[in-house]
């Protein structure tokens, strides 16, 4: 064994051999390899017919055309939302009816066993109600949205989105592949953050990571969709209603993209200064999606995964909310006291204390924000069975005085607040720097607060509410 000789020395020797020709060496190596592959390919590949229609090119002529590129993109986005909203309506109501019927039977069972009141309250009114809400509100839209999205992904459409939008990202000092990480964020922001790995430059990866939450994930879509259906489409027919709600949701997504670009630009001008790094994007051929595989993959990998996470977190959160709503300190419950304490600030933002608290308690998972809100509203008074949008309208508008402004600010805050616990945890794991993780929560939260306060102040000053 020759312990003195190191590989490092070999490198020096190689330099000695090659002398001053070093500069052109890589070019020569790559050229030789490519020339070899070119020659082999010429030898083994033959075409049986010269004229063939290049369908990929024809499709791309439309999908990335200056005229149709953007309309098709937003059209597809809207169609996906519309199918999700319209399709999720009936299964959601069906599930809610069934699950709350079970809740009634559970209550009877507890009564028959003469179980203590607090046990029934904690388990049935707390834990079970939260679970029932999460399942009935989340499962149908996810089971529709994820497969649709996976179909687009599988067919090869997403790189075209990045191709169309890259100019905006370049202007914002960000990476073109950020569009791809955002697309993943529609499914789940934690997945979007992991997807940021495809961006090589650390600066641009960080920009993409910090702004991913401005894309509403599946945990937040049900909230946004429910409120859009309630406020924008409340008074018109069902068909027209889901159409208008779709436009509302699509509009909010476009707003989220605008905020993403603005914040990316701001970051690249301040904290994360630098030149855009080089960017290459392959536009692979379109492929016929494998529908069976898509269904299995999106149901198993995505739907079940996200739903089970929500269920695991919703159960204790439901119990906690019940305890808070039923433990009295002085002359009010903990829940009411906390809501009252938050109320002045929430009021500035166009919200109320209960809404803001639901967002805070929903930190572990965005899916449970809306269920928590409804539980805290309901638990104060008599138990209301939430089986339809009409019940929800009654609860929010008639009983808790929501106006269009409350709805709008809630939706905006749902889009712009701190990322959920899982996403923050993922950011910490990827970046390994708690300052960035903290910033990932502070930036969207302060933007949400600023926008909500501005809108509310304006609306009140102009006597619109």
């Amino acid at each position, binding site marked *: 064994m020759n312990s003195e000789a190191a590989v490092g020395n*070999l*490198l020096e020797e190689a330099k000695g051999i090659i002398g001053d020709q070093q500069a052109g060496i890589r070019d020569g*190596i790559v050229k030789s*390899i490519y020339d*070899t592959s070119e020659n082999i390919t010429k030898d083994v*590949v*033959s*075409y049986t017919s010269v004229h063939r229609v290049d369908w990929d090119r024809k499709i791309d002529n439309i999908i990335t055309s200056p005229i149709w590129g953007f309309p098709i993109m937003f059209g597809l986005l809207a169609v996906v939302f519309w199918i999700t909203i319209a399709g999720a309506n009936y299964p959601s109501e069906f599930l809610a009816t069934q699950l709350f019927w079970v809740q009634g039977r559970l209550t009877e069972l507890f009564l028959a066993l003469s179980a203590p009141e607090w046990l029934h309250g904690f388990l049935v009114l707390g834990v079970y109600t939260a679970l029932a809400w999460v399942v009935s509100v989340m499962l149908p839209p996810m089971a529709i949205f994820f497969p649709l999205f996976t179909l687009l992904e599988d067919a090869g459409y997403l790189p075209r989105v990045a191709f169309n939008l890259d100019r905006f990202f370049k202007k914002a000092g960000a990476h073109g592949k950020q569009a791809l990480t955002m697309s993943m964020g529609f499914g789940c922001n934690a997945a979007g953050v992991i997807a940021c790995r495809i961006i090589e430059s650390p600066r641009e990866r960080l920009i993409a990571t910090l702004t991913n939450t401005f894309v509403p994930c599946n945990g937040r879509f049900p909230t946004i969709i429910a409120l859009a259906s309630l406020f924008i489409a409340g008074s018109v027919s069902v068909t027209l209603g889901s159409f208008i709600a779709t436009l509302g949701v699509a509009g909010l997504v476009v707003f989220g993209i605008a905020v993403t670009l603005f914040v990316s630009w701001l970051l690249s001008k301040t904290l994360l200064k630098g030149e855009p790094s080089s960017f290459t994007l392959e536009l692979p*051929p379109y492929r016929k999606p494998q529908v069976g595989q898509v269904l299995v993959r999106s149901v198993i990998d995505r739907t079940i995964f996200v739903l089970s996470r929500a269920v695991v977190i919703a159960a204790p959160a439901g119990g906690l909310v019940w305890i808070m709503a039923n433990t009295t300190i002085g002359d009010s419950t903990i829940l009411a006291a906390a809501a009252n304490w938050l109320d002045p600030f929430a009021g500035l933002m166009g919200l109320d204390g209960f809404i803001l608290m639901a967002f805070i308690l929903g930190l572990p998972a965005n899916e449970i924000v809306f269920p928590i809100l409804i539980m805290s509203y309901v638990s104060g008074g008599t138990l209301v069975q939430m089986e339809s949008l009409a019940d929800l309208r009654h609860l929010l508008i008639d009983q808790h005085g929501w106006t269009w402004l409350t709805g709008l600010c809630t939706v905006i805050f749902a889009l712009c607040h701190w990322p959920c616990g899982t996403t923050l945890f993922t950011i910490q794991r990827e970046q390994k720097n708690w300052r960035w993780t903290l910033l990932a929560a502070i930036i969207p939260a302060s933007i949400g607060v600023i926008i909500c306060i501005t809108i509310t102040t304006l609306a009140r000053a102009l006597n619109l509410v």
Partner: protein
Amino acid sequence: MGLTYQSTGRSTTREIFNVPNAGSELVIALAGNPNTGKSTVFNALTGLRQHTGNWPGKTVLRAEGSFIHGGRRYTLIDLPGTYSLHANSVEEEVARDFLCFANPDATVVVADGTCLERNLNLALQVMEITDNVIVCVNLIDEARRKKMHINIQKLSKALGVPVVPTAARSGEGLSELMDTISDVALGRVMPKPVLVRYSDEMEKAIAQMEPKVREIIGTHINTRWVALRLIDGDTKLVQAMERYYKEQNPKQADLEVLA
């Protein structure tokens, strides 16, 4: 400090990559350009017997799966999709380090049949590192649809390694691929890669370097390839060699540093 590489055995290096040691299971690497249907091949071979994680010390996704063929278990490692192995990105570095230091029993290069030229570029680079290469010409159905004919025998002869045409989406060619993998991994078939010939000056320099390389690092890594990389001034490879050597022989390395 002086580090030597003579004692580096195949079994010890693999532990660094969290793959089974030689003898217990056969380790198969899956390489390929992006968008070649590499993950479809991976899914088709492993089914649901797979899990994902990170490459040790890197934020690069790593998929690992297994399949049973002829009563033997094969561990399949899905390398990141790359255009080349010149370590211009973390993905390329991960793929190259695995091929170079983990010594897989066989490496399948998944190539897009409709775009062979670009894909052979990677295959040729893999063949410079390891002999046990199988080229899987995937998307053969797409190629047929595009009225392309690929002469598989001729391609196999030109490359000196087995070539298997597949259409992983429909399952076409997969059992042949598994047969070929086991033939190569078990040594029943010994591929003899036809290597890229560089310019005369380069070949001369390689010939001069190769004996020196063999003297110091031994023969468990392809010496022609290492010589080529050194002539190209590849400092990353040198760093990687020092790192992997240190990780598998920490005590010895420390002693030598002290000495």
